[in-house]
């Protein structure tokens, strides 16, 4: 039935001239063709299409069949003959149809697909799309750009497989699809490269720009969020393969180095407008950061990378990228930022980074971002790693750099744990300075000014000692170290001259604070114990929510435990404080006796 209808319309059109085809004919052809497909007469339809006599008809009307054809292909199973026929029809249409219309027809199919079918559809249509684009005469660069942009836009909402298992399973086919898209782009890249050798025509610039856009887009998605470490048991890691290809494309088109190093770039003729150029830069920040990660951490494209840059300069160039990555919260992106930072630091010798680099904004911002990660990030390994990197960063600076960095971190971190950690670092530096002759930053008046910052309580006697216990303990340890150490080295640190101030700003309020806190907590414990008997009923005083989950209300027993552990902390502080005071007293007395 359906086949006969098709034959009828075909016969009618065979005698017409190309120009005489009417809209009505197109409709009838589409309806009949679609019916053939739906009723399972794909083989017959293929015959009609292959018939030399129908060439003109197919050239003009064939593209109408794309939509029903794609639907049918997904209906049949892999090994169905009918599916095979459909695929051959698609192939024939790509060869025979008017490129312009078929191009739009194919693009429309890609645009309409969504969800789980995206990758399948894209992979199905890439081959015909490439055939058609290669045949296009006009607006080729534009059409290639449009196709790539459309494909990438359709892929972008898909989740990127992250674990080894997910990658191997490749449920939605994304891994496979990405590599298919690169193959799709290759002939166009080759064209650009070939023409670059000859001369640069304007049209080529356009195609090149489109391909660069595609690479930039690929770096942002899927590569930025993809797992790019080598995985055991997967020889051909699909995303590593994809990354290699993308970098090759950039390299072959001569764009890799200019993208990496701004100073290599002459003024881009395409972005004359400065504002537009800035916007473009901002948009590409993620992509460039990912590119840096691929080159410096994963060593992609390293074969062609200049090996004469100084490590500090590479760090400087990467700092912007690191900052971009560390501002993100996804594990995949954040870990790339940490890896990139680490790899840049590992290239440097200790103490080799000049303090002048702190004049660059990023060098102050990035350690602050690290602090945020190590205090707020929910993933423990990230917190630990960022702490390690902070230490690495500190180690790389010269003495003055360390000094400035400590000052900055003490003022900006707002976290007692981090402050305690910095104070411990200061102690190490003071120790080191006592063995060196030319260290002016952790001795004498520079040190005194730093100690002012360390040996103080943020809010005097009212400071929450429990909250600040890490910082206070570190400060007391430092002071104890200074008092013991300086007996031997003749007031090198200058701590004795500033003792009065330390007593006033730190020791005295700390004593007062300890007394008040202890009294308060002891009273609280007493209260709790008394109340325990009368109010066995669990009327909770407050409720606590942690990341959206309501915590179990604390029993009185647990509350008591917490209060006791607080008291324990106060005792600990008090004991170190007592020891410090004792040392000071002995020393001061000795000096007085001498006089």
């Amino acid at each position, binding site marked *: 039935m359906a086949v006969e209808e098709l034959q009828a319309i075909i016969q009618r059109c065979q005698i017409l001239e190309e120009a005489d085809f009417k809209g009505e004919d197109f409709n009838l052809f589409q309806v009949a063709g679609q019916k053939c497909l739906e009723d399972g007469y794909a083989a017959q339809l293929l015959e009609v299409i292959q018939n030399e006599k129908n060439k003109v008809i197919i050239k003009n009307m064939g593209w109408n069949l794309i939509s029903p054809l794609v639907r049918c292909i997904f209906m049949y199973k892999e090994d169905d003959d009918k599916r095979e026929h459909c695929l051959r029809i698609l192939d024939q249409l790509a060869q025979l149809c008017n490129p312009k219309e078929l191009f739009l027809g194919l693009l429309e199919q890609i645009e309409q697909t969504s969800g789980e079918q995206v990758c399948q559809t894209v992979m199905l249509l890439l081959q015909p799309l490439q055939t058609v684009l290669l045949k296009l005469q006009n607006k080729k660069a534009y059409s290639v750009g449009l196709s790539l942009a459309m494909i990438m836009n359709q892929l972008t909402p898909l989740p990127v497989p992250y674990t080894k298992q997910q990658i191997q399973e490749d449920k939605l086919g994304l891994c496979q699809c990405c590599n298919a898209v690169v193959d799709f782009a290759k002939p166009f890249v080759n064209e650009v490269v070939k023409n670059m050798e000859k001369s640069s025509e304007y049209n080529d610039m356009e195609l090149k720009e489109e391909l660069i856009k595609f690479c930039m887009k690929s770096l942002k998605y899927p590569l930025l969020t993809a797992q790019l470490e080598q995985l055991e048991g997967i020889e051909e890691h699909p995303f590593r393969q994809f990354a290699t290809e993308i970098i090759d494309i950039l390299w072959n088109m*001569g764009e890799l*180095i200019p993208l990496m190093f701004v*100073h*290599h770039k002459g*003024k881009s003729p395409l972005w004359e407008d400065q504002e537009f150029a800035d916007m473009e830069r901002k948009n590409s920040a993620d992509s460039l950061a990912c590119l840096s990660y691929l080159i410096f951490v994963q*060593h992609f494209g*390293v074969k*062609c*990378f*200049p*090996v*004469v*840059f*100084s*490590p*500090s*300069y590479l760090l400087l160039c990467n700092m912007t990228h690191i900052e971009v990555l560390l501002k993100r919260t996804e594990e995949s992106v954040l870990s790339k930022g940490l890896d990139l930072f680490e*790899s840049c630091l*590992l*290239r*440097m*010798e200790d103490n*080799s980074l*000049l*303090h*002048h*680099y702190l*004049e*660059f904004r990023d060098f*102050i911002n990035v350690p602050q971002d690290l602090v945020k990660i190590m205090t707020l990030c929910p993933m423990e390994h990230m917190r630990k790693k960022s702490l390690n990197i902070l230490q690495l960063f500190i180690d790389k600076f010269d003495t003055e750099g360390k000094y400035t960095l400590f*000052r*900055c971190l003490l*003022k*900006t971190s707002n976290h007692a744990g981090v402050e305690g950690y910095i104070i411990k670092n200061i102690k190490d530096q003071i120790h080191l300075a006592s063995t060196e002759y030319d260290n002016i930053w952790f001795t004498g008046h520079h040190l005194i000014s730093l100690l002012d910052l360390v040996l103080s309580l943020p809010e005097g006697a009212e400071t929450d000692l429990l909250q600040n216990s890490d910082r206070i303990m570190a400060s007391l340890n430092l002071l104890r170290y200074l008092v013991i150490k300086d007996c031997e080295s003749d007031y090198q640190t200058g701590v004795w001259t500033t003792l009065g101030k330390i007593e006033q700003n730190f020791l005295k309020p700390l004593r007062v604070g300890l007394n008040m806190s202890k009294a308060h907590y002891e009273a609280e414990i007493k209260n709790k114990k008394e109340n325990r008997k009368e109010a066995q009923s669990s009327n909770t005083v407050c409720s606590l929510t942690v990341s959206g989950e309501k915590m179990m209300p604390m029993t009185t027993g647990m509350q008591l435990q917490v209060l006791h552990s607080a008291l324990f902390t106060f005792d600990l502080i008090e004991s170190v404080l007592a020891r410090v005071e004792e040392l000071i007293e002995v020393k001061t007395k000795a000096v007085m006796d001498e006089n």
Partner: protein
Amino acid sequence: MTTDEATKSEGEVQAAALAERGEDITPSKDRGVLKIIKRPGSEDESPMIGDKVYVHYKGKLANGKKFDSSRDRNEPFIFSLGKGQVIKAWDIGVATMKKGEICYLLCKPEYAYGSAGSAPKIPSNATLFFEASNAGELVELLDFKGEDLFEDGGIIRRIKRKGEGYSNPNEGATVEIHLEGFCGGHRFDCKDVKFVVGEGEDHDIPIGIDKALEKMQRGEHCILYLSPRYGFGEAGKPKFGIQGNAELVYEVTLKSFEKAKESWEMDTKEKLEQAAVVKEKGTMYFKEGKYLQAVIQYGKIVSWLEMEYGLSEKESKASESFLLAAFLNLAMCYLKLREYAKAVECCDKALGLDQDNEKGLYRRGEARLLMNEFELAKCDFQKVLEVNPQNKAAKSQISVCQKKTKEHNERDRRIYANMFTKFAERDAKEAASKTGVGKPAEKAACEKGPKAPGAEGEEAEGHV
């Protein structure tokens, strides 16, 4: 014999020759960088620090293994000389080369990648050897040119002596310099001078020098080629006998400077103390009519105090009063500089601190009036009167607003009248909707420039 071994022995021979006969070009004479000239340069001039240099090179490790070659990339390698962009050996080595020269360099690890190496190509403690390839070049200096400071050809710098470190004077830093100014080969100025960056004009120093200083380092001695835009401009400088649109050449030595402190380097107490100082300075400039300079001073108060947290009650009172004064004065400066949108922004911020501030309301009214936002301006002046009914100036401004609104409406009417005749054939409904669209679009066009997000809310309140 494999080719690997062959290149290895070849590499060893050349390295040995270098070690034996090479000239030690390190400043400290520690034989860390040795050089042999293979082909002398075609010109006698060497590149200067900061110059953009173009080189071709090929690098090998001590075992003869090639690790890098610019020829593989089909393009010369470009970098800024003497800026620490490349390994130390190169900053030292290329500086000794002449244009067209080809040489060999042997670089000890301390002058290359040291004990850390450079993953994945350079192992730890590697001596690098830059040498001739088969084609016959090793490090070839192709070309170099002066550094274009702002990528606009306006200021070209050539450094005669490099300064120390990477730290540059910032805006507001106090600098001590020696300068000599030349115009057409004639020296018109020569002096030692101490001034604050951004205020060079006080000492007859063109703006280009201020700008260039922000890119110089302590001890640097350089030649600056200034286009008229960065020099004395169209007006020239009669005092020096310099005509309009003259190209200038300056030789500048930055003897010393003291940076203005970054915000995070100061504690609250210091910020408050300094705020009092710069406020005074700003007011002085304002009285002399130097509004740009005044803006810089008042701007400092904002940058120091606007985001300061954790202040005691007393401190936060002091901080607020400084900020309020700074915003109000900035608004006044911007009014004088005819940057009305910025003036409005500052008033908004001032009113955020004190919503009934008479000056804030009045100045916002003035700025809006000048931006042709008559209705909004009128609201502001009316509010002034609510706060202080005695304010005569505000009263007269309201009548100005009303007058202007009237004029404006009449002009609108004429314009729309034309429009209505044009659209006469079209149906009335469509025409009506057109005018509806026309008005807000026109209003938006008047509201150029960025606006604080708070602004909308306040305006809405104003209408109520």
